[in-house]
């Protein structure tokens, strides 16, 4: 396997965001450290630093988990308190790792990390097999819409690289995944669940195969990552363009610009071409796309994830928070919504209060209707509840002051997601996924 970190010549590579689920005990930090180390992302001075620290802590070998050692505040308490983002590149792909702490009280961090990931690595300690936390991590990855799961059976070195141990764990995991419906993807087809035996400590099957598991014929972890589909490439999503900002340089010295009216935003899903008929929601005005621009560049069409400026044929009164869709697309403004909500704040959700919901570039005041049930993230059992505490996940209905234009989260992650804001503190207190 070639191991160049940065390939300067390859400009056509894509980007993959993935998350790692597991606790320090599963070797998660070692796995990330090993990926960074074996792809040559770790440079000499960082290595010198962690070698020193390893010695200071009385360890014989360099402890690669120190590469993800966090803040002073965390070291003092001996815990990881927050999602950290790490980067590496193979020359064919750039990777963003969301590294989330795995304990139960950090459900909110798992949900945060999962929200931007297209793939999850779920770590299992080969000595312990499928545990409650494995179920929790798998359920949360599924809830937040991650379609690609890599189950990494780690610490194979401590089980003499035994093939039977590995096979039994894989079978256990599949049984559990089928029981709770994790094996089904949003289209109803089988979800992409893959297994890999490894030793992050020694580096078996991460970047290099090494020779300890000749019985395993599958791909290494890095090979799987290199082939994993990027976000938005697998589904036909409809065109959704929330307007972020309206550009009207009418005071410009350039007279040609006096009538310029550009609708600026990021295409959250789908694609658009010059000449397409569009409707602006919630008002329902119709027009056609006259031009698509990125800076000075004029485009004939544009796709998901591009930040562009759209010019329309007709003068339409449009402002931030409106959404441009293709005419005929099935999406309507609604004032009542049903969602799975993960509560993120130490202050419990109070059903009596009014909150702000931010969805795409739009905000609305929201009142809680009913809380149907909350989900025990360890057993996936439903329980009755009257309020939500931090890390709770529940099915909640809201009444809205302003209409929102929504898709269900399983159809469209960007247009099905929202956050809940507490107006008194301005804190982000909840994360929602439209049912």
């Amino acid at each position: 396997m070639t191991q160049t970190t940065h390939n300067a010549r390859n400009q056509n590579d894509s980007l993959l965001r993935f998350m790692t689920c597991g606790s320090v005990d599963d070797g998660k930090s070692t796995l990330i450290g090993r990926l960074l180390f074996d792809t040559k992302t770790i440079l000499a001075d960082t290595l010198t630093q962690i070698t020193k620290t390893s010695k200071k802590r009385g360890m014989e070998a360099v402890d690669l988990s120190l590469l993800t050692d966090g803040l002073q505040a965390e070291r003092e308490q001996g815990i990881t308190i927050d999602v950290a983002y790490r980067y590496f590149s193979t020359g064919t792909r750039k990777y963003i790792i969301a590294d989330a702490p795995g304990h139960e009280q950090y459900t909110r961090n798992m949900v945060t990390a999962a929200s931007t990931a297209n793939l999850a690595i779920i770590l299992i300690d080969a000595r312990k097999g499928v545990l409650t936390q494995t179920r929790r991590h798998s359920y949360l990855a599924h809830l937040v819409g991650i379609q690609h799961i890599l189950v990494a059976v780690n610490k194979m070195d401590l089980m003499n690289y035994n093939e039977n141990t590995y096979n039994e764990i894989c079978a256990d995991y599949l049984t559990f995944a089928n029981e709770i419906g994790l094996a089904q993807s949003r289209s109803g087809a089988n979800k992409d669940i893959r297994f890999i035996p490894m030793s992050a400590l020694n580096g078996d099957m991460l970047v290099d195969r090494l020779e300890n598991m000749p019985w395993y014929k599958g791909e290494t972890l890095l090979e799987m990552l290199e082939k994993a589909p990027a976000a938005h490439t697998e589904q036909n999503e409809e065109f959704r363009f929330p307007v972020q900002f309206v550009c009207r340089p009418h005071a410009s010295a350039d007279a040609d610009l006096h009538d310029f009216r550009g609708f600026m935003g990021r295409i959250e899903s789908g694609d658009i071409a010059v000449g397409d008929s569009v409707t602006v929601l919630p008002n329902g005005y119709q027009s056609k796309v006259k031009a698509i621009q990125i800076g000075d560049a004029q485009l004939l069409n544009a796709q998901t994830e591009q930040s562009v400026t759209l010019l329309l044929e007709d003068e339409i009164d449009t402002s931030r928070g409106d959404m441009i869709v293709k005419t005929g697309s099935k999406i309507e403004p609604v004032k009542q919504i049903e969602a799975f909500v993960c509560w993120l704040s130490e202050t419990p959700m109070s059903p009596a209060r009014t909150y702000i919901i931010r969805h795409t570039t739009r905000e609305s005041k929201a009142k809680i209707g009913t809380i149907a049930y909350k989900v025990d993230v360890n057993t996936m059992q439903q329980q009755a509840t009257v309020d939500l505490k931090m890390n709770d996940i529940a099915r909640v209905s809201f009444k809205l002051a302003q209409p929102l234009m929504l898709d269900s989260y399983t159809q469209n992650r960007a247009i099905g997601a929202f956050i809940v804001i507490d107006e008194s503190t301005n804190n982000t207190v909840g994360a929602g996924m439209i049912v």
Partner: protein
Amino acid sequence: MLNKNSLKQPLSHLDWLESEAIHILREVAGQCSNPVLLFSGGKDSLCILRLAEKAFRPGKFPFPLMHIDTGHNYQEVIDFRDQRAAELGERLIVRSVEDSMKRGTVVLKTPDEPRNKHQSVTLLEAIEEFAFDCCIGGARRDEEKARAKERIMSFRDEFGQWDPKNQRPELWNLYNARSHKGENIRAFPISNWTEMDVWQYIERENLQLPSIYFAHNRPIIMRGGAIFPANVPLANGEVINQPKAGEEVINMQVRFRTVGDITCTAPVISDADTVSKIVLETATTTITERGATRLDDQTSDASMEQRKKEGYF
């Protein structure tokens, strides 16, 4: 015209990063009432200026530019800063650490100590003077471990403090830039970029940079195992980093990987005199950007974290 199938191709990583950064800049413009873009003339902030052009042209930027000048900056960089702001036709505000020293709000322990950490005081004074509710900056998460956990929209209280244990959760691309009067948001559009991404973007966009980023001959001294630029003239006529007794001044071909306070920013030995040579050099380097060049981060394992808690960028 592209056909429908080709639209299923994912964006290249540079296009993706560019689009994400434009989106973040537009969210700042959409959510904040009085933002400012911090611009030093350094490579990261020059990338952000290009991103702002792509985000807002043909309109004007919905924010002024501001530089917190330590008075210890390379003249080439200051000239470049002024020239770039003039070319863009955007307003540039300069506030100086030396003015804070005159006011008595910055007190130096020794006259030639690094002034990077003192920028926080001047920055907070400028935020109060103009009532800015958001400062856009070029920090990246790959720079330093205290940055790896920083939000893209990072909340600071009235004292400019960052509380790592109490950050707002940040999910999907739904950013929360709300603040009450006196509080402040720091927005980092290139959080997810690495040093390599920055150089690749500079190459692709053909961005102009201050000359000290490219290999040049410069008198240097070796001090504490690091290369130190020697005898650097300042705008006020003063010459700093003069050799101490026993130190030898030699001429070396060097370039800067990062540009900051002269007293704590070291150059690296290099013959890379074009952007594409720098891209190649970055691909094969064995030392991190800050490890090579930022002497102020090496005082302790947590020096960046400490500075950020005190209001630093």
